[in-house]
């Protein structure tokens, strides 16, 4: 029964980092909407763990077997995914990279190519968050940072950006920087513990909103609500809500829906044989 398979509608695939994360669920939604309007068959797949490059590579390999027309990819590892991209190339499947970049040098060295990159830079986002806190707190504050999974690229990029932003202003002092593995409950505990050692922090940056929201609850529980400016990342619905309620200072919006939409439209144009720009930046914005 091949019926399901050979519909007239061409099939394209979107492989994201994980679907346990709101950011990529939104990206999927944006992509799905576009795919429906353009009459494309869309497959969305992801590993269970956001940090599992090897699983993602397997998924790509498997989808190559299914000969999709275009592969949209949010790499879990900028260098590690290159062999998979090359496999797609050899299978004549155009690769559209979304949100996180594939390492250019490695790609060239391996003789691989990507059709285009759609997205924004996590490091810029981190810098933006840092700049905002400096402005908001007049360049002087004791800052706590919630790191992501140790060794995970996305979080590390955001962290790098944030740290760079703070280098300029001596008044901004990072007194604690601890991992909470992108998880809400761990963020709660770690924040609670940091507050014990540093009751006087006035700012907190979390590498994603999930952690920011966990920290928010811990700070509220400690009766310090409002006294500490919290900045998150990803602009999840809950975070936006917390900001309008003035319980959180700001978050960085990368607009995943737009990325998803743009990725599918680009894929459509590639199928149609049109040429597409190598870079399609999606604006980052500070939500405050």
């Amino acid at each position: 029964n091949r019926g399901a398979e050979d519909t007239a509608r061409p099939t394209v695939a979107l492989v994201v980092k994980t679907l346990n994360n709101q950011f990529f669920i939104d990206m999927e939604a944006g992509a799905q909407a576009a795919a429906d309007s353009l009459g494309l068959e869309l497959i969305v797949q992801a590993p269970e763990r956001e940090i599992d490059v090897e699983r993602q590579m397997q998924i790509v390999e498997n989808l190559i077997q299914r000969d999709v027309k275009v592969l949209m990819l949010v790499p879990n590892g900028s260098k590690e995914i290159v062999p998979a991209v090359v496999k797609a190339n050899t299978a004549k499947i155009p690769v559209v990279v979304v949100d996180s970049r594939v390492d250019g040098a490695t790609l060239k060295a391996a003789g691989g190519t990507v059709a285009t990159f759609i997205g924004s830079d996590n490091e810029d986002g981190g810098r933006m968050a840092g700049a905002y806190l400096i402005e908001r707190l007049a360049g002087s504050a004791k800052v706590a940072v919630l790191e992501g999974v140790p060794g995970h690229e996305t979080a590390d990029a955001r962290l790098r950006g944030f740290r760079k932003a703070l280098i300029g202003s001596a008044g901004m002092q990072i007194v604690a920087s601890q991992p909470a593995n992108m998880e809400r409950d761990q963020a709660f505990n770690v924040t609670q513990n940091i507050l014990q050692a540093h009751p006087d922090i006035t700012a907190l940056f979390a590498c994603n909103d999930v952690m920011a929201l966990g920290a928010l609850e811990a700070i509220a529980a400690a009766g310090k609500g409002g006294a500490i400016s919290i900045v998150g990342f990803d602009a999840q619905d809950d975070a936006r809500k917390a900001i309008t309620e003035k319980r959180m200072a700001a978050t960085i919006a990368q607009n995943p829906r737009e990325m998803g939409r743009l990725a599918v439209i680009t894929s459509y144009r590639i199928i149609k044989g049109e040429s597409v720009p190598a870079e399609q930046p999606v604006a980052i914005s500070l939500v405050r």
Partner: protein
Amino acid sequence: MRGIVAGREAGTALGLIVLCAGLWIATPYFATAANLTNVAEQSAIVGVIAIGMTFVILTGGIDLSVGSLVALVGVVIGSALQRGVPVIAAIALGLLAGIVTGALNGLMITRGPLPPFIATLGMMSVARGVALMLSDGRPISGFPQGLRALATSDVFGIPAPVVLMLALYLLAYLLLTRTVFGRYMYAIGGNEEATALAGVNVGLWKSVVYAISGLSAGVCAVLLVARLNSAQPIAGIGYELDAIAAVVIGGTSLLGGSGSVIGTLIGALIMSVLRNGLNLLGVSSYLQQVAIGVVIIAAVLIDMALRRRVQRSSL
């Protein structure tokens, strides 16, 4: 025998004391009332699951599904609340889901019969998937204050979650030491065949044990949702390992048949004191992992050594 059990816990307790003493010296922030309250509160989450896990391990089994059950129950409660179900009813519904899933584990294990490891490993994956489907992978939030109170209110300064945990441990202790069911758990873990030959309905009691494990995962979910003011489909990942670690650090044998729930409580405290201390000391995230591993091993080593000593000197 009393002596030996006491000795067993003494071993774990010593581990905890050593750890606390170390931290007390190392940082001024540790031994404050506020911080100790924190630690107790943080131990409640895994502490509660560890109760059910102790029962399961005592009978010679294991339950890998608890982490996913925390997520599933949380999502059930969350979506119930969203649909305007009153808090009490929502919680009841969630706990029921926990019990049923746990009983399902029990059924697979006793009727299959499947090795507990496999049955619960499968359930771990299934429950997680269902939780994600129910919630579309999105966290559910915005709950009535009634729920939140579970996490924020306190009794004479002791946080509600801690009180709840201690109450449950007392209950579990009595269950294990005073009731027929408790004896059966030890007997089943010690020699299932002989126990069945003594006319004990092993299948039934084992299923009950897994149902209880599901329930304690459910209670943990309630605490977590109240604490984070949000129900997450990816909550509880890795909790099973923390819980098992707490149980084994607490001196319960993975072969079943011997152990105690008091030991488990101490084991759970060791884990959260350690994490708390590492944060207070601002240890680098990489070094933290090393430290955690070392302490787990050290704790059990101390325990073992002391236990041998106790047995020798129990003349």
